[in-house]
């Protein structure tokens, strides 16, 4: 029993990292209807920002954390300006947005490899590595803090979307961008805000990921899993992204723990495909028409 609980905690902790990353994908998808693959690049840059703020400038963790989140938000906003807005102005097909996003993601990865270097970096220790012990079960301090920060960030996001006027505008833009424009919503501004929010979440995810593991140019690769989790939960749905991520984390962990770690990805993804066959729009997805 304690082994099962320990595995559940492992799964929740892995899932909460996926969730923080997946929400960014879903947020942009709900408005723009395309998968922003540059999101992984923003997460990676966020992680590097946090790292250099803490090591080169020796800022305390809290300051570095906030600055990295803001920096990643700015990066995401400028990406939107440079890589997506020109396409949007000319009503380019969605495929072009995806190509542009992939280009941006490869660009970010390579610019880091070329300037900072391909080797990985380690964050200085902020929290003690002694875990909290509950009988046989141990919970890492960093895990607990990550879970907390992820939870607070996601709740703040939900608050912005559900309780503010801007949030209302975001929801209406997600429903129909053309109708919202007709109703007087400044959709350019909404898209700007959505990318900013997604970027801030990416920065937070990047710093937390970097602290827990390491920082390296291919962090974006991990975000593929969170993208899959977002699809599984239903792209465009925020609760879907969170639930999909947590489920993916738990399924992966339990597969590794109770069946076979060698076949973990195989079994976990067969399950996911089965779910998508049963519900093509994902667990909580509302959008059913075929979009990229």
């Amino acid at each position, binding site marked *: 029993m304690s082994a099962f609980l320990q595995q559940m905690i492992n799964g929740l902790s892995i899932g909460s990292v996926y969730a923080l990353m997946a929400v960014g994908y879903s947020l942009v998808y709900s408005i723009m209807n395309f998968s922003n693959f540059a999101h992984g690049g923003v997460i990676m840059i966020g992680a590097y920002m946090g790292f250099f703020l803490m090591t080169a400038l020796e800022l305390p963790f809290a300051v570095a954390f906030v600055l990295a989140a803001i920096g990643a938000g700015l990066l995401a906003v400028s990406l939107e300006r440079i890589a997506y807005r020109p396409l949007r102005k000319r009503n380019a097909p969605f495929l072009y947005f995806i190509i542009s996003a992939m280009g941006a993601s490869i660009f970010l990865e390579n610019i880091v490899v070329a300037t900072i270097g391909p080797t990985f970096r380690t964050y200085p220790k902020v929290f003690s590595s002694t875990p909290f012990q509950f009988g046989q079960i*141990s919970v890492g301090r960093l895990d607990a803090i990550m879970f907390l920060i992820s939870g607070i960030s996601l709740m703040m996001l939900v608050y912005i979307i559900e309780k503010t006027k801007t949030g209302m505008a975001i929801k209406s833009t997600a429903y129909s961008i053309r109708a919202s424009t007709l109703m007087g919503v400044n959709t350019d501004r909404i898209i700007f805000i959505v990318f900013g929010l997604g970027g801030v979440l990416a920065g937070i995810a990047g710093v937390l990921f970097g602290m827990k593991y390491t920082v390296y140019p291919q962090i974006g690769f991990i975000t593929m899993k969170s993208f899959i989790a977002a699809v599984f939960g239903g792209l465009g749905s925020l609760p879907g992204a969170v639930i999909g991520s947590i489920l993916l984390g738990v399924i992966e962990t339990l597969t590794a723990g109770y069946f076979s770690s060698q076949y973990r990805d195989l079994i976990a993804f067969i399950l996911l495909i089965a779910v998508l066959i049963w519900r093509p729009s994902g667990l909580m997805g509302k959008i059913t028409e075929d979009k990229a």
Partner: protein
Amino acid sequence: MKKRAFFLLISTVIILSLLVTGCSPKPTEPAAIDEPTEDVDVEVVNVGWIGSLTGDQAVWGNCEFNTVKMLFEEINENGGLLGKQINVIGYDTRGDAMEAVNAVRRLTSQDKIVALIGPNASGQAIAISSVLEEMKVPGIATVATNPKVTVDDNGQVKPFNFRVCFIDPYQGAVAAGYAKDVLGFTKAAILYDVADDYSQGLTEFFEMTFKEKGGEIVAKEGFKFGDVDFRPQLSKIKEANPEVLFMPYFFKEAALSANQARELGIDAVLMGGDGWPSEVLIEMAKEAIEGSYIVNHLDFADPDVQDFKATYTAKYNLPVELNGYLAYDAVRVLEQAIQNADSFDSVAIRDALKTVSVKGITGQINISADTHNPEGKDAAIIKIVDGDYIFQQKYSAE
């Protein structure tokens, strides 16, 4: 129009950045480091070297090339080999197997080398074997540990490939033997990378040897290259309650998994192979890996290697990397083979290489005619104590 121009500019920048950083430039001709001398057959004999002088592994390649040049200079000062002077010609492979093949082609056809030293990487060493065979020139790899470097897919030994380091499976057997016979552990667990030949080779032979010696493998869990979280596997390993946990992979994953293992309360002794030694490992996981054991090629503090280390450092003002020690032994092996062959004919040197036996600085090297590997070569067992690599003993698997 302006926007279009801007977009074009951005796309051009993206494409250019890909071209520049995505793939390193690969000119067709390998870069010549030392110009070959003209009179090949009068007084001077050419020996070739290949390895990475640029790129990720440049620090290792440069150390090898420096070592090889330094040793042959010494040999030349003492009258040369069989009365002739040796000229070393080295080419950069940039860590690329295609470049290695080109370089070996040029060395064997144009520079008429009698033997080749290097490369250090298994991928390149495997790629050049057909050229060596075609040109009938023997090659001695330095740190290429993959079994396939000297043996083809059907288990036949490749006639012109040799090496001076032990192979991956042997490391696994040494680790198992040491864990069982010296440390007295009977319950072992393994965590390994399912997508990596090196990790699989070590795992397979650790498991086999440990079981043969009467031990029990209580858990064997896999992960895939690129994973950063190992807790699901480690939680399962914890349930099995092993005395020793074998982790045959590289230092980054080793550091992450060691930290996570301790976090989950696994108190088993950790063991790793030659992928571990690194300053980064200590920095990332100092407390977690305290008391762990590593199987390595040699002990850096061994009295036998101090002379070489001092001479090298005095000459180049650089520390000696692991590769330098094995390049040193490759030169000693070649020197011995040429003396035994009493000839600079490359086929005669090859025949002599099959039975070479010299005391190298990384241990006694007895090349086996059946495998072209140094048989029964001692491995060095290193223990991590207070964040330092402390030599324990030489150990060889029967």
